[in-house]
């Protein structure tokens, strides 16, 4: 993924990737908050 905004298709794939990564980060933060 040299440039995720080279085509609409790659931009859309980047959106899905961003959603997945952000969901994981938020889940980790919320779980850590619940535990500690």
């Amino acid at each position, binding site marked *: 993924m040299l*440039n995720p*905004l*080279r*085509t*609409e*298709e790659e*931009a*859309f794939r*980047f*959106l899905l990737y*961003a*959603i997945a990564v*952000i969901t994981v980060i*938020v889940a980790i*933060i*919320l779980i850590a908050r619940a535990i500690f």
Partner: protein
Amino acid sequence: MEAASIAHAVHGEHDHHGPPPANHSSRVEPQLLGMLLFIISEIMVFGAFFTAYFFIRVANGDPWPAHGTTLPVLPTLFNTFILVSSSFTMHWAQTGIKNGNRFALKAGILTTFLLGCTFLFLQINEYANIGFAPQNGAQQTIFYSLTGLHGAHVTIGLILLLLVCVRAFRGHYTPEEHRGVEIPGIYWHFVDVMWIVVFVTVYVI
């Protein structure tokens, strides 16, 4: 004599009047490069607003949201799903025109536009009912600034989508030439990614 032949050679390279054609790399089309650089500058603008947000919350240690205020997380989560689904319809339109499917292009663009309008309407409705104003405090200011900056981007995206929609219904775009759909699409996905970041930082975390 020599000077004249050089002048002729130079003239021969540029038959047309006006400035020479702009140089561009073979790897990235100028239109895509323009949108990419624009998006990079947009990320910097959003970064400035996020800096203010994190300064208030982390460096200053102020409560979030401010005492006596609540943020409508569930309605905004619903609104987030609306915006995310508009990226799927945008992609549907894009793959549609690539495959020569004009129905998918028109239906996809129109649905994307309507979903975007719904998002903006719900956001404005949230402002009207949220119960605090930008001048009430630092947290309220940055809440309106971040969501308002994003709302401005949705508005610009909707104007682009409206233009694409009108052109699509008038028979423009082909499987070979559909850059006019592709580049607003990239912008729309950017607006969507940015909303997810704004939603997570402002409403969830």
